[in-house]
């Protein structure tokens, strides 16, 4: 199915840009919870995937979807490692607040 004929490329890119902005806002404005930061990173990766899929569909080229497969792999690995780091951090400090992670601040 080609989205050029039905919806067009621009709405997809707009939704993706909105997701990116919301994810960035979540990372920067949120200083309370490390888990929400990880979720914001997931949102940003999702917006990148949405862009790749939209262009893949509009240009009728499969390469974008293949890149999404690999990006999903990397995102899964990233979230697994991130959650492991958060668990180790919580075990040492009994907190997941970002402000408590200032031991390397100098």
């Amino acid at each position, binding site marked *: 199915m080609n989205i050029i004929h039905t919806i067009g490329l621009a709405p997809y890119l707009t939704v993706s*840009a909105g997701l990116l902005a919301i994810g*960035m806002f979540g990372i920067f404005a949120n200083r309370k*919870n490390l*888990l*929400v930061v990880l979720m914001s990173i997931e*949102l940003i990766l999702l917006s990148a995937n*949405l862009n790749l899929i939209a262009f893949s569909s509009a240009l009728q080229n*499969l390469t974008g979807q293949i890149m999404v497969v690999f990006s999903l792999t990397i995102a899964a690995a990233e979230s697994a490692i991130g*959650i492991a780091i958060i668990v180790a951090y919580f075990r040492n400090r009994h907190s997941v607040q970002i402000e408590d992670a200032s031991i390397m601040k100098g």
Partner: protein
Amino acid sequence: MTVILFYVFAAILIVSAVMVVSARNSVHAALFLVLAFCNAAGLFLIAGAEFLAIMLITIYAGAVMILFLFVVMTMNTNLVQAREGVQRYMPLGLLVAGVLVFELVMVALNYKIDPKIIDVVSQPNLKAIPNTTALGSAIYTHYILLFQISGLVLLVAMIGAIVLTLRHRPINRRQNITRQHMREPVQTLEMKSVNLNQGVEENGGFLRPKDSYYGIAEKDSFGPSPGDKMDITEKRQKGE
């Protein structure tokens, strides 16, 4: 119909993304993220990426978010809940997001797609074969090296996550290979000459192995430590 579906999915996606970053409770944030991923899968479906839509639901809503929820619920909810004073960094976040949106709007106002690009990159036989078949035939031929490397990345992530969270507790009893190799039969076996018509009782009852059970345990593993009350090695050797 497709257009209406697109806007419904997109609206729910954006709203749930906003709820993810603004929810006070981490559990609610994780559940809204599941909703966001399901709607993104709907957008993928509209764009024709059926396999990736199913993969998104399976991997994210099925695996990663369960991991998130598991971790959130393992932690103490009072500690995970939001501390007041978020407003301090709100202007910074709004500034960054605003600059980002401004840049993206500038790009959107000025971009131009080369009209001939579809002739260059399009793969005309894509419509004839199903999406999953096309993806498989591309991944397992041209992209096989990347595919294998992404498997290695997952392996490294798995090992890394295990190493990061593994904690040696003194509960588990571990094998001490050196001790096993250094062990002589005399230390554990006692040969007795047994007369005829004598049972176990007449020979002193059942004997435990002399040295094996009550030896000093390896450090950090279960078992008596030197000088412990349970350490009766010396008593055994004296014959008590």
